[in-house]
């Protein structure tokens, strides 16, 4: 085992570990007054880690050279793509957090806590490990590192009842899901005798035994919980609503990318020879997520709950790409993920900017009536984001649906695609309700607070990406996603 080569492969994780541990010490000794410098350093570390990914992303890496530590980790193009996306999302979430915690919205504990950026760093580290896991053990390690950090993040406003409730709910249900996942993994290990993805794949060749099939189902169920796909989605609205908005922003972006990437790796690398066994499950989950994500959102008054359902709905489309079960589908899924992250970041930041005079944060429909008159900048940005989420051209959200449906139709899943796209119209209903409230209703003029440069910058950037200008990104995005997807299918 060549440690030098392994360490050079995980250089970006090393940066995150060192930065995380060092900043943890700074936070422990320096306290909350150093929160801002720590956040700045964390962003720098994420930038540094992301910078290390660029050469590999550019040239595309796959094959046996990408295995680190005796095939515990696989740092291929797929992992690099997912990591780059995770780092970008985490950076954005860190940038928009301090103004929120400094405002009235944070309740009695004004000011960002010093742990916040450190926890984000550790969560990101966990995700990095998740997406490059090539062994059930590393998979679980990464997943739990991410989850533990996430439970704490959800309840970071300790005095706030809703935040605490969100953390507790997340923890209990997350632990249950981890249990299910572990049970599935133990079944797989028991019936094959290995935890290594490549060896598992070989051992699972041919007819699946009952125990192996149960292992597959339990693993998929555990992962479905992590990506909040129907029928394991119930926690999402509660957690998003209760968690502080910057944390919900984080939850809806980076961990989603990591969990989806992990799921893709598991189904293609471990169960790559058993497509028939999981394709139907994924198809069902995808359709159910699209339909229930849309139906659940219709009655919501709270905007964060609405966006939570919207994220369930979007996961359905992402799983649609997964269900296609070929490289084109995986590539489409990655393109979708990228655009989804931009849309989700943009809309949550838009919500963060709905602040009152004293900085209190509004989050219901009643508060944003007639926003187009009082705050046209935010309202127009949200309008574009909502139409983009609904997949209306010429916004880039259309392109994300375009690629997954194209992949599905090319793989001859025409009926499946037709049902899914018809169901997507249900989703359009609540997205245009958002627009209706902001543009058609009489203004209430509650949103009067000013927003800092950080919020505007992130909002502007995401809106620029999802605007028709974003189509100019599509050639390079497709190129990167194709490379990433190809490395996933090397074994086939």
């Amino acid at each position, binding site marked *: 085992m060549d440690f030098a080569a392994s360490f050079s492969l995980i250089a970006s994780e090393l940066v995150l570990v060192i930065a995380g541990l060092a900043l943890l010490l700074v936070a422990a000794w320096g306290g909350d007054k150093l929160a801002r410098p720590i956040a700045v350093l964390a962003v720098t570390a994420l930038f540094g880690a992301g910078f290390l990914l660029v050469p590999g992303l550019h040239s595309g890496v796959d094959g046996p050279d990408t295995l680190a530590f005796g095939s515990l980790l696989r740092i291929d193009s797929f992992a690099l793509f997912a990591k780059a996306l995770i780092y970008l999302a985490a950076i954005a979430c860190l940038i928009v957090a301090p103004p929120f915690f400094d405002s009235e919205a944070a309740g009695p504990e004004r000011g960002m806590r010093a742990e916040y950026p450190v926890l984000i760093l550790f969560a990101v580290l966990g995700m990095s490990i998740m997406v490059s896991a090539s062994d059930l053990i590393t998979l679980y390690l990464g997943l739990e590192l991410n989850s533990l950090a996430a439970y704490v993040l959800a309840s970071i406003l300790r005095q706030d009842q809703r935040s605490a409730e969100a953390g507790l709910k997340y923890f209990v249900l997350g632990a249950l899901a981890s249990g299910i996942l572990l049970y599935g993994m133990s079944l797989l290990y028991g019936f094959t005798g290995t935890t290594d993805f490549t060896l598992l794949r070989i051992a699972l060749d041919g007819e699946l035994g009952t125990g192996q099939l149960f292992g597959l189902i339990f693993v998929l169920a555990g992962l479905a919980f992590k990506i909040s796909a129907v029928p394991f989605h119930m926690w999402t609205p509660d957690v998003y609503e209760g968690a502080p908005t910057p944390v919900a922003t984080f939850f809806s972006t980076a961990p989603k990318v990591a969990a989806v990437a992990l799921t893709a790796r598991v189904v293609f690398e471990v169960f790559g020879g058993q497509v028939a066994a999981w394709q139907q499950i994924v198809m069902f989950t995808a359709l159910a997520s699209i339909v229930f994500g849309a139906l659940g959102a219709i009655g919501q008054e709270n905007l964060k709950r609405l966006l939570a359902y919207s994220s369930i709905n979007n996961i359905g489309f992402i799983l649609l790409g997964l269900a296609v079960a070929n490289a084109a589908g995986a590539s489409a899924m990655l393109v979708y993920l990228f655009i989804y992250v931009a849309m989700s970041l943009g809309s949550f930041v838009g919500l963060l900017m709905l602040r009152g005079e004293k900085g209190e944060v509004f989050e219901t429909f009643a508060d944003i009536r007639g926003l187009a008159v009082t705050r046209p900048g935010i309202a127009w940005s949200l309008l574009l984001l909502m139409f983009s989420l609904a997949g*209306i051209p010429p916004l880039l959200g259309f392109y994300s649906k375009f690629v997954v*449906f194209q992949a599905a139709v090319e793989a001859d899943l025409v009926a499946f695609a037709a049902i899914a796209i*018809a169901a997507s119209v249900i989703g359009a209903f609540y997205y*245009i309700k958002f*627009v209706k409230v902001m543009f*058609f209703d009489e203004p209430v003029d509650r949103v009067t607070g000013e927003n800092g440069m950080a919020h505007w910058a992130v909002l502007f950037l995401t809106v620029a990406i999802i605007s028709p200008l974003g189509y100019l990104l*599509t050639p390079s995005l497709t190129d990167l996603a194709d490379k990433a997807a190809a490395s996933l299918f090397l074994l086939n």
Partner: protein
Amino acid sequence: MDGFPILTTMMLVPLFGALLCLFIEAGAARGIALVATLITFALGILLWVNFEIGGAQWQFTERADLFAGFSYALGIDGIALMLIMLSVFLMPICILASWNAIHKRVGEYMAAFLFMEVLMIGTFAAQDLFLFYIFFEAGLIPMYLIIGVWGGDNRIYASYKFFLYTLLGSVLMLIAMFWMVAEAGTSDIPTLMDYDFPAGAQSWLWLAFFASFAVKIPMWPLHTWLPDAHVQAPTAGSVILAGVLLKLGGYGFLRFSLPMFPQASADFAWFVLALSMIAVVYTSLVALVQQDMKKLIAYSSVAHMAIVMVGLFAFNIQGLEGAMILMLSHGLVSGALFLCVGVIYDRLHTREIARYGGLSNNMPYYAIFFLLFTMASIGLPGTSGFVGEFLALAGIYRVSTLAALVCTTGIILGAAYMLYLYRRVAFGTQDNADAAAMPDISAREWAMLAPVAAAVLWMGVYPESFIAPMRDDIAALDSQLAAAAPAGDSDLQSGPPRESFANTLSHAGEGAH
């Protein structure tokens, strides 16, 4: 003109105008919108002048591979040229119509209209299947806003209905497009028009496209969004909706359904004819009992578009030419009728027919314009409506006597409801004092109505100007359809010509121009 990207320029001008309008105050926004639409119209005239009749089928082509999955490809044939002309002609008139009627959020309103113009030009000029879809579908956003923000009392219901109805119709078409592109290996529309799709698949593809265009055009029984949207939209919104957006459906049939799936089109022709026959009679009867002027005109639109459908599915040159002319004519006439409603709505703020009466006394010029457009809607010879309806009905008569009979009945009913409307509004006694006190049309309203009136008469007296650019394209389409055309029930066996007449007729026909 070689190499100058005139189509892109025509889209960029209103686009920049729109972006500018978003950021400036009301008065300047009006001016900028008017200037931008007039420049675009001037470019449109340049386009028409430089369009080479009898030249290449696709002219002014532009192509750039900017995106992954589809390309930015533009180009027009005669059919697209005429529809683009219709759009850019109506646009400055719409801006004028909104000059005083819109008070709130003028910049955003003008921007929405200018975006709409970009998308309409793009839809007609797109030569890539997916680019077409993007432009086609993107129109939902500005129209949703126009109805929802500046519409009438029940605007929210109407805007939702419009949005969801049209979206549900279109998404299935997208799936069909994916299938076609996977099958043919290209998303280039001219190539796809010549591609032979397997007969078994054609039916499905045709139905998917039908779902989209039938909602858009709209065909009975999918028309119910139209009266709501028309009634609630501001005047200019109704003009664009009736004038151009409905034509997108007809254009879709002409550009996609007929040439790409000729066999399926022929198989389903009876279905289209049946729906259209019901539509003509049913919606005409509904129009007869309307109390709301806009609703009446909206239902008359459904009836007219049904005659367009009949012409399209007659599978012969007369039918196709008639359908095209009727689309252009209906775009002008129904647009103008909505403008006429707008003129009196601006004065009295009601669309109820009973609140008016005897307007020919106090508004004589208005009454003349209104009469002209009413007659054009009925299809009086000398107006554009006559040319289109006559050709379309002549085309269908060769295929189905029954359909011709029923549709002609619809025309008579059309005369009934339009004349009834005109009598109640312009003639009779002046019972309402406030209506009797309304001033006649202003200079701005002259500027709106006079050009449309001129165009209607031009198209009625000398339709050759409009048919000439399209003739080759329609002939090409007809030859594509010839193999699939259903056998008509007319006896086309011509007897031996009578010597005296055959020899005295000169044969300098239409082609001599």
